[in-house]
């Protein structure tokens, strides 16, 4: 939060004296107050998932004890072992990975050229195309689910990965396109013109010059698409009836039903699904903020 003052030293030097003195007490206190506040925020956001972890590390009978205990009386990895060895779980994980990765690749491949072209060139139908994209952003698969079900039913694609991949890709193009367009629009035209003078074609310029400059935007778009596809629930719930083809979001619910309440295994399965995504997210957190700044909110 410190700001550079090198440009206007004389004005600042005199003006700073008064507020500085008043703020010294706070400046000392904030060294402790802010990290403590941070700890409180961490507790709020993480403690539910800590409860999940503790429940996954105890026998299921203990999860259903009344009253519940915060710490397990018996620590055990049984739930994790059971889940990892469960072929249903392996299938769900496989579906989630295949669907989320494929949808992400498709979104990036179709959104990059579209974002580049609409950011750079005016052409007949540009406004209509962008309007269509905005409207898509408002259509969630949830409200259209009956229409989606009927379409894939007619196409014979119920119970296929393809139906999920196509849906997840199509509904996430809008956001990716919007972020990427912000990036392309921010790149000075001169850079591109210089590349064109060097003899690059439009596609070559895009690949060699523009893409490296939009990398944070691509990271942001990839993350959003992957997360959205990884978390998708209602379309999969409706289109996939075959147990072996369900994604994790639908599959894990069968650990807790009216007949069987295996919370420990459901939570173990959930954690196996969550942890890699959290790590992925944490690794790119800086790019995420940068991507949103340049692509969305400027």
């Amino acid at each position, binding site marked *: 939060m410190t700001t550079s003052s090198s440009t206007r030293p004389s004005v600042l030097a005199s003006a700073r004296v008064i507020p500085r003195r008043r703020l010294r007490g706070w400046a000392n206190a904030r060294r402790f107050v802010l990290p403590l*506040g*941070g700890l409180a925020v961490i507790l709020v956001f993480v403690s539910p998932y800590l409860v999940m972890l503790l429940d996954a590390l105890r026998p299921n009978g203990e999860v259903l004890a009344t009253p519940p205990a915060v710490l397990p009386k018996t620590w055990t990895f049984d739930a994790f072992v059971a889940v990892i060895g469960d072929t249903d779980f392996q299938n769900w994980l496989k579906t989630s990975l295949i669907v989320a990765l494929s949808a992400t690749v498709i979104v990036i491949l179709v959104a990059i050229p579209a974002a580049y072209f609409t950011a750079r060139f005016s052409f007949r139908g540009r406004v209509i195309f962008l309007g269509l994209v905005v409207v898509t952003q408002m259509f969630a698969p949830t409200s259209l689910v009956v229409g989606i079900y009927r379409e894939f039913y007619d196409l014979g694609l119920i119970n296929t990965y393809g139906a999920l991949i196509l849906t997840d890709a199509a509904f996430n193009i809008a956001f990716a396109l919007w972020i990427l367009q912000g990036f392309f629009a921010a790149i000075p035209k001169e850079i591109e013109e210089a590349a064109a003078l060097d003899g690059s074609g439009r596609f070559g310029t895009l690949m060699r010059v523009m893409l490296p400059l939009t990398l944070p935007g691509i990271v942001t778009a990839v993350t959003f698409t992957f997360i959205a596809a990884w978390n998708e629930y209602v379309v999969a719930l409706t289109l996939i009836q075959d147990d072996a083809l369900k994604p994790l979001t639908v599959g894990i619910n069968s650990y807790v039903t009216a007949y069987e309440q295996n919370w420990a295994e459901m939570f173990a399965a959930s954690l196996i699904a969550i942890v890699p995504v959290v790590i992925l997210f944490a690794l790119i957190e800086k790019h995420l903020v940068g991507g949103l700044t340049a692509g969305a909110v400027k």
Partner: protein
Amino acid sequence: MGEALLWLGPALVLILGVVVYPAITLFATSFGTYSITGLRKGSAGFDNYVNFLTSPDLGQVMWNTLVWVVVVVVLTIVIGLGLAQFLSKSFFGRRFVRWAVIVPWAAALVISSQLFRLMYDYYHGIINHVLLALGIIHTPIDWLGDSRFVMPSMILVGVFVSLPFTAYLFVAGLNAIPADVYEAARIDGATPWQTYRTITLPLLRPAILIGVVLNMIYVFNSFPVIWILNGSNPGVGNDTMITYMYKLAFKSGDHDIGMSAAAGIFNVLIILIAVGIYLRFVNWRQGDKA
């Protein structure tokens, strides 16, 4: 035109094929009658719409939807603004705080909803246990069964899972504000609150606008939280338009696909109109100030 099609073609095919086409199918479906297995039996005219709009449940469901969307979005935006402000300060351990805020975002909504379902549980839930131990309540509360508590309990989860994206969006917005405008405010002797009100908030406007619109869309369409937390309650007393629509088609005794499609069309119109009104409203405010 030809070249435009080359660059936009793939995106256009997907959007037309998997977003627009189902929307048209939904529209067509809303004028048909269907057997329980989904076979079209004939035209229904406007019957599905009439049945839907005169349904005795509609008033309650509309009210639930209004409460759900307005309360979750307002709380998310207000708390998100504060959280973003905090996350943009520099202090020891900030990186860990930012990572922690990511967690509910990275966890699927279904997973978080199931987790809260157990934590809210009357007998085995940690929430009642802790509140009893602290003496805040003296008898356990049936968070997901007592009609006074179901909606507030769902709203809490709705805000919790909406905060990460919103906070990050606002952090990005704060980063876009140039540092020298703060410098100028300090020279003028502005108090922190004055600075926030006259500089930060106006400059954060694009981010807030996007945050409100996207949250309106996400929260209105939010399915898993209500589906799972309200799953054990019969009837539609705590349903929103989205879960009500789903129940009509896939869970009700007569699997009324036609009426559910009419509800779907109605939902699409509601969100288009709501976002339109909001954007109109903020533009009008903007014009008024200028």
